[in-house]
């Protein structure tokens, strides 16, 4: 009996809307719990990160210039696409060690998070903007604006849910991102990048790297054209290194306080403000 031989998937990086291998040519072997090889994963390099920042910077102004309504629709579309690919995401999560029930729950929550945050894209501005009652004859208002290019370091756990929960509040506010996926659970991140490419997210808005955190961390935190860094991997010595490097260009450093990725506390508009600046505009009032 000849059984059909399945076609294996190649996992690559996602930079500027394309799927290159690491420019360094390096990769690492991802194994399952029983030690069998699952896939070769690109070991992203510093140069890959720099290229991603160029892509992210190039995409930022026009992404920020889109309406909140439009960004919300794009996030909603991602939810639709993940829904359509749920079996693939569930399978990959299982390959990486989740039980069937856990994997299903994680995919469901991921879809719901996308929809939750999609809804904020044209609302957080109203929540966090003010018209300021200045004592002088001026019209003064303050609005949130994206901080720019954000580096995101995903935690090891919850390779899909954590990444998406962190990505959403950053991009819905008009920032662009270079994300480093979980080293031990990278499969869903790469598959999610295929969703990003198939969805209407413009090239460069989200860039996803795989690789080794210790190798890339210092560089990500120190890069002079990155405005903020979100770090959720929870290692105190890595936090310290990030804070030191961030001082080079007064980078905003965000350590999200997350008790559990499945908890509702992840869903808060205050997370959006972590990567927003506040701009105040004055104009005289008179005849």
């Amino acid at each position, binding site marked *: 009996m000849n059984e059909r031989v399945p076609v294996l998937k190649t996992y690559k990086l996602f930079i500027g809307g394309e799927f290159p291998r690491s420019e360094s040519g390096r990769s690492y072997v991802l194994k399952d719990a029983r030690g069998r090889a699952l896939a070769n994963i690109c070991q992203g390099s510093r140069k890959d990160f720099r290229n991603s920042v160029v892509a992210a910077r190039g995409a930022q102004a026009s992404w920020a210039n889109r309406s909140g309504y439009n960004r919300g629709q794009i996030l909603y579309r991602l939810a639709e696409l993940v829904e359509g690919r749920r079996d693939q995401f569930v399978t990959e999560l299982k390959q990486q060690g989740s039980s069937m029930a856990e994997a299903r729950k994680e995919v469901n929550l991921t879809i719901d998070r996308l929809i939750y945050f999609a809804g904020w894209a044209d609302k957080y501005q109203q929540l966090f903007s003010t018209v300021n009652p200045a004592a002088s004859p001026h019209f*003064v208002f303050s609005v949130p604006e994206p901080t720019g290019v954000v580096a995101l370091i995903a935690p090891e756990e919850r390779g899909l849910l954590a990444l998406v929960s962190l990505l959403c509040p950053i991009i819905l506010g008009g920032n662009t991102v270079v994300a480093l996926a979980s080293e031990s659970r990278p499969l869903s991140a790469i598959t999610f990048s295929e969703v990003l490419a198939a969805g209407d997210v413009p090239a460069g808005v989200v860039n996803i790297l795989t690789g080794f955190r210790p190798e890339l961390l210092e560089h990500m935190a120190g890069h002079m054209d990155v405005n903020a860094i979100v770090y959720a991997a929870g290692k105190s010595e890595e936090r310290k290194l990030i804070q030191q490097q*961030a001082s080079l260009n007064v980078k905003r450093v965000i350590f999200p306080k997350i008790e559990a990725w499945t908890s509702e506390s992840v869903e*808060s508009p205050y997370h959006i403000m972590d990567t927003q600046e506040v701009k105040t505009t*004055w104009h005289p009032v008179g005849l």
Partner: protein
Amino acid sequence: MSTTTEPVGESTSTLPLDWTYAPAPEKADPNIRERYDLFIDGEFVPSIDRQYRKIISPSSETVVCEVAEAGVADIHRAVKAARRAYDKVWSKMPPRERGKYVFRIARLLQERAREMAVAESLTGGKPIRESRDTDIPLSVAHFFYYAGWADKLSYAFPGARARALGVCGQVIPWNFPLLMAAWKIAPALATGNTVVLKPAETTPVTALKLAEIIRDADLPPGVVNIVPGGRPTGQALVEHPDIDKVAFTGSTAVGKWIMKALAGTRKKYTLELGGKAANIIFEDAAIDQAVEGIINAIFFNQGHVCCAGSRLLVQEGIANVVIEKLKRRMDTLILGDPLDKNTDVGAINSKEQLDKINRYLHVGEEEGAEMWQPSCPVPEKGFWCRPTLFTNVSQSHRITQEEIFGPVLAIQTFRTAEEAIEKANNTPYGLSGGVWTDKGAKIFKVTRLMKAGVVWANTFNKFDPSSPFGGYKESGMGREGGWHGLMPYVELEAL
């Protein structure tokens, strides 16, 4: 409409007009003691090693008083007092009562506004008109504004509970000594924190006068502690293990040092750092009004303003006329005694700062820019710098890229709005900016594209306690003022 404002023609003018103003000195007693000690735990105490620093008036170089210098051990005492006050009193006090104390401070400060203004000008060098009309009233207003928030925080953050952070270590600069103290202390107290504040080494006097007011207001001991000193004092405060938050206003270099020093700690921080604001003037602007605004943008407080409009981007077609008008206006600026009510430009705050400005004037000329100053007389004693403008300036010149913190304007030209925005954003800073045009749509487009935390359109250097202030990029993080200014002093918890 009659036109009676035509200039008087030569034929009718027989005598040259003398525009010299008679002196108009402010003579109120600033009520400055000969010696100030540290304000710790509700009382004035000498520093442990009995060190005092002489405070001089930058306009006369005479000694005004001496002020105790806090050492590491003094900082420790102050933080301990603040911690005790937080644990035992302040965090337990009903928010409304807390707010009443802050209201008291505002009122007492208001009542002593005049002597505060004189003290500010005497020790800081800024014109009395500015301290009287800007610094002191804005300080009062800041306390009033935040006092009212104390018992309303549950309405400020929907879906979350705001909790105080604990003890705040605050370090402020010498350019707006009392106002910066108000910006730091008022929101911290209103949100339920206690404070250890270090004023700048050259300008601690009004902060210590504020300490007297805080004592008179009967604030519980330790809630506010004021510990003057230089950089080592600030370092000891920032590095003290028992503070929960650092709030700093000052240079970007020190801000970066603070970020590094706090790495690996649980301390939160907000930074309000340097700037290199561009003022963009379009051909369709009301030119005379814009010229007045540009003058105010850069010469207000001798240019010792982090958000000063130190770069001017002028559209090519009007460059000559704008520069000509600027020079004419600069010729009429009155430089001199800060306590004279006619004075427009006061003294440079310190010898050190004057040396720095002079180095930049030298650098500007060396790099090929053209310098112009009015010929106004300069007093013999004291630290002075004539209002200065540079033309023939390019984007890469150091006087375009670096913060000078003095009365020095670098002028560039542009053709299109896109070019102006590109140039405006092309520095590591992003604190403020200005736009001058009569076209509404253009204002909204340009102000939105400027990477700056505060943008003034057809005005400049306006401040209000209800209005958030703070920078993008290397100009810092966090906002001071308004609803947004509460955020850096609270921890939000899910309900």
